[in-house]
């Protein structure tokens, strides 16, 4: 029997980026907050220090910072007629765990979504007509506008100290920035990172073709910066160990460097690590949450009563917790009814690899996870899709993240896959290759969804999440088009061989693509097509808010973190200024 603990005002399920920010803010507002984190506590000093943190085998290959999939994993299949099998090793995507969550091991790429993304369906139908979008795609509006989110984007970027160059300040296009972006209220908190050589090569090639290169916005900082929480971040040293690693230099925005110390200083805030939340408890009406039940590291179960439950775990785990707690109606693909698990989307990532002669020395290891140069010319709806018969786009850029020795082995097409020929090709090309990333949107389809697996259970006996996903044909067409554009840039960059690798189906989890799993608990204005209202509040249980990329109605062109940050502050604003004054649904159905 679970031991019942003293009630608190707020519990956050997970203490990663969203949980840490919300916990800090609500504790500061005078509420008693408990942050429950399933993984261990850890900090820059002593846990992330070099040389141990640069152990590529331990962190990049054996995934030491990721969710323990012996205890808890995801089952995957491509379509409803298949039997899903559990992922026993993380390869295709890498859910983090532990204090600070995935923001400990991220790359720091910090994009805003486009204004059109938030009114996606309305925008596309206005521009291209009602029958333009493939019938299988369940594209919809988000229920919030870019202008509403702008102050919250701004706040998150200033929390992180993001390094970049604005391209649009209050509607005025700025030289050197991204001319396609939505208007910003002010400049980035810190100037862009230095341009690596691969970025400079890309810039030349892209400019030659008339595109608009700009430095990728990076939360691996170009200079020391003290954020509004009074925490000082330091300058990135381009060590090349961001993605899959933690930053030893206080140079990457992670909860540990941007917000957690401020939360932990507040006596209203309590952190519990190594505690696995099993379910959100509901009262007899099913319309109010009474708290959560969790198991500590020894397996002992506790019931933590709370007035407000904030589900702030990784997107996939947010959806799973809703399903395991019976909050919201699960999506049924056969009837297309129900909402939890609906509009799951991924990211359509592809590449073009440019092989140079040996006189071009790229030095790919001198990088941060976010240093590099990109173009936005083919992102989202920045170009006319009319002739192309698909929606969405991709940014293209030279954003190599470190050229680490175990993972980075560029070889041109036709190279043997192993043996002496392969080794010679790797040695020949390692330092003379630029990889262009084509980072594309992912659209929700009726066929793709998340639900509970009927067979497989986790270490606590609860059903695993089942993912049913394959790339919609629209996204394959998009990838094919933009990847060819990337190859053209590669040729303009002076590459001797350019190998384009557009995304092709079927989706497989055996090659890393991205960890940008989104949707499944989406926000919106219609309870028939969304789990949450526009304030990320559950339509069904009004004292539950679900914060994360799980709220995305579709996944736009860009890396999701900045939009998750903006939504976090957006939801906080509604909780602090409206919900606390008058608890209950913030939007009437």
């Amino acid at each position, binding site marked *: 029997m679970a031991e019942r603990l003293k009630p608190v005002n707020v519990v956050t399920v997970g203490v990663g980026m969203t949980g840490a920010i919300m916990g800090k803010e609500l504790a500061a507002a005078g509420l008693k907050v408990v942050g429950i984190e399933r993984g261990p506590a850890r*900090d*820059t*000093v*002593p846990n992330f*220090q*070099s*040389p141990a943190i*640069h152990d*590529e085998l331990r962190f990049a290959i054996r995934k030491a910072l990721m969710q323990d999939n012996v205890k808890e994993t995801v089952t995957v299949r491509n379509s409803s007629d298949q039997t899903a099998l559990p992922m026993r090793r993380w390869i295709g995507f890498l859910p983090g765990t532990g204090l600070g969550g995935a923001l400990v091991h991220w790359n720091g790429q910090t994009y805003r979504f486009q204004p059109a993304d938030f009114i996606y369906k309305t925008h596309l139908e206005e521009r291209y007509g009602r029958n333009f979008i493939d019938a299988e795609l369940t594209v919809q509006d988000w229920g919030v506008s870019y202008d509403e989110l702008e102050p919250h984007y701004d706040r998150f970027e200033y929390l992180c100290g993001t390094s970049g160059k604005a391209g649009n300040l209050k509607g005025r296009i700025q030289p050197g920035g991204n001319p396609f972006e939505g208007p910003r209220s002010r400049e980035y908190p810190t100037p862009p990172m*230095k*341009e*690596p*050589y691969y970025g400079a090569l890309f810039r030349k090639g892209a400019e030659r073709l008339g595109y608009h290169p700009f430095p990728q916005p990076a939360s691996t900082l170009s*200079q*020391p910066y003290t954020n509004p929480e009074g925490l*000082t971040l*330091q*300058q990135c*040293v*381009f*060590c*090349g160990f961001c993605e899959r690693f933690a930053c*030893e*230099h*206080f140079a990457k925005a992670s909860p540990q460097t941007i917000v957690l110390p401020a939360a932990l200083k507040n006596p209203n805030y309590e952190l519990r690590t190594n505690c696995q939340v099993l379910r959100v408890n509901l009262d007899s009406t099913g319309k109010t949450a009474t708290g959560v039940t969790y198991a500590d590291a020894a397996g002992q179960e506790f019931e933590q009563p709370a007035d407000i439950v904030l589900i702030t775990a990784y997107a996939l785990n947010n959806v799973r917790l809703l399903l395991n707690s019976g909050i919201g109606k699960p999506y049924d693909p056969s009837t297309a009814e129900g909402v939890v698990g609906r509009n799951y989307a991924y990211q359509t990532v592809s590449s073009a690899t440019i092989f140079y002669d040996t006189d071009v020395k790229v*030095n790919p*290891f*001198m990088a941060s996870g976010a240093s590099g140069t990109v173009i936005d010319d083919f992102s989202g709806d920045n170009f006319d899709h009319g002739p192309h018969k698909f929606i969405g786009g991709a940014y293209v850029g030279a954003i190599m993240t470190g*050229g*680490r*020795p175990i993972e980075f082995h560029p070889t041109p097409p036709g190279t043997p896959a192993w043996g002496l020929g392969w080794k010679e090709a790797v040695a020949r090309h390692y330092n003379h290759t630029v990889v262009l990333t084509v980072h594309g949107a992912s659209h929700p389809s009726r066929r793709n969804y998340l639900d509970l697996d009927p067979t497989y259970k986790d270490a606590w006996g609860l059903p695993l999440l089942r993912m049913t996903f394959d790339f919609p044909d629209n996204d394959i067409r998009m990838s094919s088009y933009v990847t060819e554009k990337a190859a053209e840039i590669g040729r303009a960059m002076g590459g001797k061989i350019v190998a384009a690798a557009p995304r092709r189906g079927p989706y497989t989890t055996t090659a890393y693509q991205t960890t940008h799993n989104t949707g499944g608990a989406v926000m919106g204005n219609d309870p028939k097509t969304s789990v949450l209202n526009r304030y990320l509040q559950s339509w069904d249980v009004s004292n539950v808010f679900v914060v994360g990329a799980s709220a995305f109605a579709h996944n736009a062109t860009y890396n999701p973190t900045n939009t998750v940050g903006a939504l976090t502050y957006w939801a906080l604003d509604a909780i602090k200024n409206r919900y606390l004054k008058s608890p209950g649904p913030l939007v009437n159905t």
Partner: protein
Amino acid sequence: MTRISRLDAVGAIVGIAVFCLGSSASVSAQGKRTADAGHGAEIAAQGTAGVPACAQCHAFSGASDSSGAFPRIGGQSAYYLEKQIRDFASSERANAIMSPIAKALSADDIADVAEYYANNTGQFPPLATADAATYEKGQQLARVGDAAKGIQACNNCHGPDGAGIPPAVPYLAGQYAQYIVFEMQMWKRGFRKSSPGSMALIAKQLDDQQIAAVAAYYQQVRGSSASVISK
């Protein structure tokens, strides 16, 4: 393999930084002229017009002397030594003795003398060891950092036990404690303007006891990995 990549990486970063900042270094980056270590040795031994012999203070081997007033320079990377001399000339590192000397050296002289000392390592003079508590305190800062102050381990950049990550980051292993203390104070008080984003920030957070401890540690920790890696 990892180590070699990382060493190259830091050098390349600096190369890029210089590439972005100005033209003088891009000449050497393109490798138009090969430095002449023989000519550098001559400058070290007997000086050149307006420049006294480097060996007077730094010894012909680069080991300097046990007074600690002068840094050990033998075996630091040529890139690093060259940059320091340029910084003295530009007063990025203002120094009453080194700045006039640096200004009197031509660009080629600087490259040559840096090349010479980069390829020499002298003996370590027999120095008294620090007390165990100080050594341990210094070692902890070097290896782990200071959680309360949010200071990362020195070795993150300066390599395992201060072996250096050439060409950009100097070794500290075997460096004279007095010199390390002096330079940390230069950063703390704003006289040394190089590395404002890292070293100045860190120096300002460290108190005098911490600086003394970490300096004593590095003076003593020479050996093992240091001599192997600093090349």
